[in-house]
């Protein structure tokens, strides 16, 4: 049977193919990636779009959590100081409610309470970078200003609005409580009861002061229970952060599965390809120069 006498193209094709295998294995080893262009594995490349998106989004969520944690801590600290100040005000109120205090002493206590009122006012106007934390969504205007015409002694310029921020897929957390809810709600009015106590001490009776002190206690209880909100959000942010960090690890591992090279396999492939390449070259070197002419004696003259 006659066979293809010109095997050069086949030999070259074999050499090219083994060389290509070497290149592929080498590229996988050096880049650590199995998929370098979409045609290497269209489905994996397409899934990587989602993976990359999710991973980048989670990074942003983690940044959001950092920013929010700062806000929550500042708000919580401010409210902690409000609670301390209110405690002090209640002690003063109890002191002023006893029948043994003199009018001068009551005036003195009232003066102290005015100082506390100013302190709480300042705390209620806590801001980070010009953004007021207790003004609802009207966060660019000072929430509380002194107003002598108001029964509570202050005027609220904020609103009842709240904001939510997404901190994970499908997880929105509320990030603020408006001042109207914190300081002046149905179960307790911080500024109103404080003003009531000051007025009672300045112009009223001991029993007026006692009533006002009771109201102040209600306000104290109200703000203490509302303050829990910030602690809860902080806890939620912490656990979300842990979740997201784990999620990032999962996504990296998924990305590795999708487009990462199996280094062990790539190394084995490289060895195999090198062996095949050497074999192809050796075979070429052995076969190509051989023909019948090698064995014929040169014509003798």
């Amino acid at each position: 049977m006659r066979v293809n006498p010109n095997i050069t193209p086949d030999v070259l094709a074999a050499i090219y193919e083994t060389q290509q295998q070497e290149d592929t294995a080498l590229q996988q080893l050096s880049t650590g990636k199995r998929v370098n262009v979409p045609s290497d594995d269209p489905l994996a490349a397409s899934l990587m779009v989602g993976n990359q998106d999710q991973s980048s989004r989670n990074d942003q969520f983690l940044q959001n959590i950092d920013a929010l944690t700062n806000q929550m801590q500042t708000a919580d600290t401010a409210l902690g100081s409000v609670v301390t100040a209110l405690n002090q005000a209640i002690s003063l109120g109890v002191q002023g409610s006893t029948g043994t205090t003199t009018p001068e002493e009551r005036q003195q206590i009232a003066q102290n309470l005015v100082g506390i009122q100013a302190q709480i006012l300042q705390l209620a106007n806590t801001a980070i970078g010009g953004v007021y934390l207790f003004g609802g969504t009207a966060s660019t205007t000072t929430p509380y200003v002194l107003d002598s015409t108001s029964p509570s002694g202050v005027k609220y310029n904020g609103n009842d609005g709240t904001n939510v921020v997404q901190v994970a897929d499908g997880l929105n957390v509320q990030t603020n409580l408006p001042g109207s809810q914190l300081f002046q709600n149905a179960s307790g009015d911080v500024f109103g009861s404080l003003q009531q106590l000051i007025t009672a001490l300045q112009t009223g009776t001991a029993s007026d002061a006692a009533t006002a002190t009771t109201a102040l206690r209600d306000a104290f209880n109200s703000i203490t229970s509302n303050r829990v909100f910030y602690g809860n959000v902080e806890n939620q942010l912490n656990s979300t952060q842990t979740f997201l960090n784990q999620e990032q690890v999962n996504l990296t591992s998924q990305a590795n599965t999708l487009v990462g090279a199996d280094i062990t396999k790539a190394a084995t492939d490289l060895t195999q390809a090198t062996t095949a390449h050497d074999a192809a070259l050796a075979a070429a070197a052995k076969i190509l120069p051989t023909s019948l002419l090698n064995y014929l004696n040169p014509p003798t003259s």
Partner: protein
Amino acid sequence: MPGLNTSMDIAVQALMAEQGALDVTTNNISNVNTPGYSRELAVFQEAPPIQEGNVVYGTGVTLAQFQSVRDQMLQLRMYEETAQQGDSQAQLNSLSQIQTNFADPSQGVGGALTAFFNSLSQLSTNPTDPNARQQVLTAANNLAAAFHQSAAALGQVQTAMDQTVPQTVSQINQLTSQIAQLNAQVAQMQGLGQDPGTTQDQRDQLVQQLSQLTDVSVTQTDHGITITTANGVPLVVGGQSFALQSGAASGNGLQGVFAAGQDITSQIQGGTLGGTIQVRDSVIPNLLSQLDTLASQFTASFNSANQAGFDLSGNPGGNFFTPQAAVSGAASSFGVAITDPSLIAASLDGSAGSNGNVTKMLAVQGQPLPEGVTPMSAYANLVLAVGNYGANAQANVTASGASLQQLTDERNAISGVSLDEESTNMIQYQRAYEAAARVVTTVDSMLQTLLGVGVTK
């Protein structure tokens, strides 16, 4: 009754025949590396015998003809496979250029979309922050740039492919006119009962080159071969060739291919020309349309989200991106409608510090567009399409390459020159030549003997 002179004549004829056969061997050896060359055989034939009475005696050998050894069917299959190879290779070349733009998932439209939504997410933590607002605008402009770049990359490849069409058409015309000339010669020689040998090799080699450019159908007729395009437009009939024309096609402004005034662009299949037209007229428009649909629907979807809110001054939100009148071209005209960061309608209740509408904007990320998938999935589908086109072209190139290699092997097994075989033949002819020469010497010696009879010393 044959005499010594007859023997001498027969021996001389044998010498000439062997020498002629050696010429064939020499020619074969010389063309061992000529592409498309089919080896030739020296066909020996007995000279007509002479009958005298009851005795029939041979009159030696004649060299009847040199015959090329070829398999026409194999040749036809090689044309087909070559056309397939040219087609896939043209597609692969262009798709390799295209897919680099979609290779890195953190770049391009996908990466820019993610970055845009991340900037909004950042804004939601502090909706009055001017830096965060500016970042949203910057990210939006980056997204626009990414859309422009992807559309331009597709457009550039399309233009580059379009420019090759007239060149390819003129190459086809040049080949068909050469083929027609050779075809006429082949037909003439075949008509005279001669083996067209080298002329046919040259013609077949040119048809092979033509197949590389476009898929042709070759049929054997009394007048040589007839070549038509795959859908029947004649290119070569006998000694006549029919030129194709290229020119601006109506409608898309791209180069069309015409035969006798008829636009046959969409019917061209296979070969470099078929692959080029396939990518130019089908693959790229399909990818561009996916990109345009995403750009247009995303614009509409995000604008309506922005319009649901209020900007920093408490005014109702307007268009965030430039509204797109038509889907076609939306990616290249994708633009940001606002330059003032305070116009981002982040607020839901009109207060500056409200971020409620950012939530609605972020929701665009997870909601299906009218085309049925989320923006990011639409982009992932685009990447999938690009990858699939590329992978298919790659697979086809590999498959047709292997197929073509096998066909070439088969063809060479029949038509290829074997140096071993030629060496053997050479020895064979040499020995026969030596033997015939010995006959001449012997007859000469016999004649000497005869002439010496009666001569006394």
